[in-house]
């Protein structure tokens, strides 16, 4: 940690203060464009949470997980079932979130335990299968006993409530209006900051270094006395926990969830965020998640007007152009920056050494 001290502290802290200021003002600036942008930002923050969780599994420990969204689903459904009219249960969120995180962690171990022996792409397909199984089960668990309400999903999910202050209502404080998405925004930013700090601390900890060793060479790591079984399970469990927490927030902010939100494409999206941003680098992953959640939205709002002004009418379905550009962006970024936008230190080292 001493080596870090070389960074000029004044510059560092003023950068932190600037970022904090931007984060505080952001929702009010976005509200000027439209409240929907605050909601989009909240979704983006949820993706940041997911990407950070997946980064532990993929980036730190090097275990390719293509079914990560399953843990998100588990967290979301736990929250939905314990705080909605579906079962008539309305537990407070600070009770449910830990339960959801715990169940998600359990699922993580459940997935991790039988797959410990698998390597590389075999693990990828098993996790993918696991994700699909969870989704299909959620989709069909409405018969013979209705547990998840099947494809219709769960509606009327409770918002967060802290001491009588409901997140669903607009409240006024210091003459400023705090709408529902704005309140969630601040809560989510707080959670993200905590989780980013946890991740940064984790990376250079004993556990983080052990994960890195496993990622680079599992056999050698074991020879060095690392308990690979326990650490791999820990990676799965921790990744799943973050996914579960994100899922709980997703339920609360959306008020409605259905299995459709947890399809394979979502898993792939989160993997893309991690890899595109720079596997193993916390800031890269945050950047990847923010970019990949905002770029499609920005395209959604620009593609049609641009076509209108160029040709006077909509020639091509904006949705198609949006996805085409998105796919193209994935390909191009990888072609020009194969290690991601902000490569992790280890990757940087590898690439320069090879050259």
């Amino acid at each position, binding site marked *: 940690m001493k080596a870090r001290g070389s960074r000029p502290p004044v510059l560092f802290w003023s950068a932190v203060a600037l970022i904090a200021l931007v984060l505080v003002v952001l929702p009010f600036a976005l509200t000027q464009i439209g409240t929907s942008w605050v909601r989009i930002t909240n979704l983006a923050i949820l993706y940041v949470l997911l990407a950070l969780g997946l980064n532990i599994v993929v980036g730190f420990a090097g275990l390719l997980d293509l079914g990560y969204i399953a843990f998100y689903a588990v967290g979301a459904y736990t929250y939905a079932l314990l705080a909605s009219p579906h079962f008539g249960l309305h537990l407070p969120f600070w009770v449910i979130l830990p339960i959801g995180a715990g169940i998600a962690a359990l699922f993580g171990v459940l997935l991790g335990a039988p797959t410990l022996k698998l390597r590389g792409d075999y693990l990828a397909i098993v996790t993918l299968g696991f994700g699909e199984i969870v989704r299909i089960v959620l989709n069909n668990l409405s018969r013979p006993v209705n547990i998840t309400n099947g494809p219709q999903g769960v509606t009327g999910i409770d918002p967060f409530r802290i001491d009588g202050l409901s997140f669903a209502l607009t409240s006024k404080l210091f003459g400023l209006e705090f709408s529902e998405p704005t309140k969630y925004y601040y809560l989510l930013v707080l959670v993200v900051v905590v989780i980013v700090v946890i991740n940064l601390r984790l990376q250079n900890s004993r556990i983080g270094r052990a994960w890195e060793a496993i990622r680079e060479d*599992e056999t050698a790591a074991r020879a060095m006395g690392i308990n690979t079984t326990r650490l791999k399970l820990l990676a799965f469990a921790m990744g799943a926990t973050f996914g579960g927490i994100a899922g709980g927030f997703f339920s609360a902010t959306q008020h409605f969830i259905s299995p459709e939100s947890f399809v394979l494409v979502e898993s792939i999206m989160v993997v893309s965020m991690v890899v595109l941003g720079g596997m193993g680098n916390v800031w890269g992953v945050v950047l990847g998640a923010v970019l990949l959640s905002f770029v499609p939205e920005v395209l959604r709002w620009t593609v049609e007007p641009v076509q209108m002004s160029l040709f006077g009418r909509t020639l091509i379905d904006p949705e198609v152009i949006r996805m*085409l550009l998105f796919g193209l962006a994935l390909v191009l970024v990888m072609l020009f920056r194969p290690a991601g936008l902000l490569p992790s230190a280890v990757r940087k080292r590898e690439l320069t050494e090879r050259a």
Partner: protein
Amino acid sequence: MDIFLQQVINGLTLGAVYAIVALGYTMVYGIIQLINFAHGEVVMIGAMVALTVINLLAAAGLPPLVVLLIGAGCAIPVCMLVGYGMERLAYRPLRRAPRLAPLITAIGVSIILQHLAMLVWSRNVLAFPQIIETRVYTVAGAAITNVQIAVLLVCVAIMAGLAALVYRTRLGIAMRATAQNAQVAGLMGIDVNRVIAATFVIGAGLAAIAGVLVGTYYGVAQYTMGSILGLKAFSAAVLGGIGNIPGAMLGGVLLGVVEALGAGYIGDLTDLCRIAGISDWLTQRCSGGGHFVLFGSNYQDVFAFVVLILVLVFRPSGLLGERVGDRA
């Protein structure tokens, strides 16, 4: 009708198609250790091109079989071109990149192909022209159609042809050498780039045929049809041991049969009314011929994955896969 035999026949037909698609995955994986996520989309493009050509020729009054063959004959080169193009543009530049980078480009290519197809062929479910008149034969109490027989025959022929190519020709030797060690193969005078491109082209050609077969068998085609098919085929390739050609064939057929049998029997097997005696509540629910089915046939898609996971837990490198050390 004999349900067991019927499901086996249906499963074999579906499994044979899975196997053909799985071959494309496994050949590419064997040679450059890349999961070509866009392979399923190539199958879709094959089906779509054939559909368009067949519709165009419908008025010409040619015999149906000839029309179908022309359709396939157009689909194959188009798919080969797509396969070559994506190898050249999206994968070749990344051959020395970190392992996950080509995976992401593969996902990107898959998104691009899917939406290009949506642009060309709309987002609707299209009817694949059923120009071959379906005839049903009864064998030992089970029905088998002429289309099913044709699908099976074509698949067997393709597998035999591919095996001959890989194990008997110079190109096959070059492919196997490159799969073992690309660098050394290069030193032995093999043009590794050409061999890899050839692998993609052959895989894409197989995908085109698979697309035509699926379209003819199910009678529908849509721009999303490639994803689930690709997923199943990829599972089949892993089940057999990815990178292993006989493994892909075995995995595909096995997966198809398991899926069909599973869908056929799971409802009966998990009907709790079979053991209604264990509780009064159940007895009440089941009285009067009622059912209390835990898992219905809508769990069909789960089977493929459950079987896959179980097999991999006990045989971590697939059914026929060799136990390889770390390739890192």
